[in-house]
């Protein structure tokens, strides 16, 4: 028979373990109930409102930083120099509709000619303490990841990480990686219901990698396309190319001016692209003498930018000068 003191010790130990377990579980529940903003600063899923509480650090303002234009600098870096853009074509890009080799070709040409274009140069009004964004980007290469599996935020990150770790794409912390999914693929964290795309960053293969997701917006034309046939559509009703080009411009502009989510955003947490989301400014209509496809011409699709021998319909971007405004060019 054990001595009662031994039983006390045993029970005390058990009580301690049980209470500790209860305490830890309570902490876990509580973690989920804390407003995201207090943990997600400077941004949170689905709304960058969470960053609003963070004030601009006025002393961080250097010569390359201009303030007072409706968007604030928060001390983080911007992406300077020529930013290479890498593309991961995820899903089935040899399929039907706008999930085709033609779409890949047009989008890659678009990226290759986006650098120093009028819309991209708007980003050159943003800077950090060591210099400004150049407004130049280049096409850094692409790979195809064939899959029929939907993406999650975790598998999206793995997709980028695997491409870099496997040597299929270079490890470049000064680059921007786009994962473009075909229209049969869902990104289950809110593609088409919350968002058309997003950008973020993560440490992958030891580098701070900036990456973005943009799905083929033909999956949800009413949510993510301004017109169902665009100036580059291969067929009427296939607005995927132009819709994706628009979202890619939005994400590239934001990722370059706020790559680590701690540089440029306004008091409500909106980055430059957010402030002009689906705001296209003055537009023209495709006509038979222009650069539009036959589908775009037949439907008189609208466009507002021309570069690289193509017309595009790209949202305006917020210029960090002249008091700030949504503009098509500087």
């Amino acid at each position, binding site marked *: 028979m054990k001595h009662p003191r031994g039983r*006390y010790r045993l*029970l*005390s130990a*058990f*009580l301690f373990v*049980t*209470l500790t*377990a*209860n305490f830890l*579980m309570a902490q*876990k*529940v509580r973690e*989920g*109930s804390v*407003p995201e*903003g*207090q943990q997600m600063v*400077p941004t*949170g*899923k*689905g*709304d960058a*409102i*969470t*960053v*609003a*509480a*963070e*004030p*601009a650090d*006025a*002393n961080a303002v250097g010569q390359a930083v201009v303030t007072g234009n409706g968007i604030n600098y928060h001390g983080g870096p911007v992406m300077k120099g020529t930013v290479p853009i890498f593309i991961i074509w995820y899903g089935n890009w040899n399929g039907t509709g706008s999930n085709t080799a033609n779409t890949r070709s047009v989008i890659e040409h678009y990226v290759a000619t986006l650098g120093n274009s009028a819309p991209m140069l708007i980003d050159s009004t943003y800077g950090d303490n060591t210099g400004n964004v150049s407004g130049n980007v280049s096409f850094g290469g692409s790979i195809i990841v064939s899959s029929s599996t939907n993406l999650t*935020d975790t598998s999206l990150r793995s997709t980028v990480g695997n491409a870099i770790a496997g040597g299929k794409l270079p490890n470049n912390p000064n680059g921007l990686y786009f994962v473009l999914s075909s229209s049969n693929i869902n990104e289950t*964290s*809110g593609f088409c*219901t*919350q*968002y*058309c*795309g*997003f*950008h*973020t960053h993560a440490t992958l293969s030891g580098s701070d990698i900036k990456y973005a997701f943009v799905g083929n917006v033909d999956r*949800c034309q*009413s*949510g*993510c396309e*301004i017109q169902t046939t665009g100036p580059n559509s291969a067929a009427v009703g296939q607005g995927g190319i132009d819709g994706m080009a628009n*979202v890619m411009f939005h*994400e590239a502009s*934001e990722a370059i001016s706020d790559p680590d*989510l701690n540089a440029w*955003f306004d*008091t*409500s*947490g909106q980055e430059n*692209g*957010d402030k002009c*989301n*689906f705001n296209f400014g003055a537009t023209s209509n495709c006509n038979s003498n222009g650069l539009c496809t036959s589908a775009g011409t037949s439907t008189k699709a609208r466009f507002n930018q021309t570069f690289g021998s193509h017309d595009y319909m790209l949202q305006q971007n917020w210029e960090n000068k002249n008091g700030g405004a949504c503009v098509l060019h500087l």
Partner: protein
Amino acid sequence: MPIRFLQCVCAVLFAAALCVSAQEPVKPPLNPRVITATKQVTIFSGLERQMLQAVQKKDKAALAAMLQDDCTIELPDADPLAGDEWMDSVMAQDYSLKSFVVRQMSVADLGNAVVVKFDRIQDAAAKSGSDSGEFFVVDLWKKNGDAWKLANRYVAKVSSVPWMPGSSPTPTGKQ
């Protein structure tokens, strides 16, 4: 006797721990990222803010214009309210909506109807006491001509503690 008491306490705590562990909802972590909102999210974020601003300003006409005639509002621990009754309650002088945040919105597009889900955080006071906190709201909006009108609202309270972004920025001493 004390040993039995301790045994009972341990058993109860152990059972509670198992129960809590089993019932805890799986909540995926929120990943830091900045999104390009869909057109519908952009539109209905604006409409939801308009409604809340109408409540703030006690603008009953503006609020009424956004509700369907047969609108119903379902609040936690309460019978469903007709739209008129709900309007009367939030238009009452003893109800005060001081500030609010709409976030985490998603919209399911059903054609002439949409289901809008979002989190609303508010700092508000009613005659019966504080109406502050975080709320999970599901709204059914229906298209009426060219206008969207609220047909049904379902509200669940997530937390009683209000948190207002930007209300208390961390001072740096450098402003």
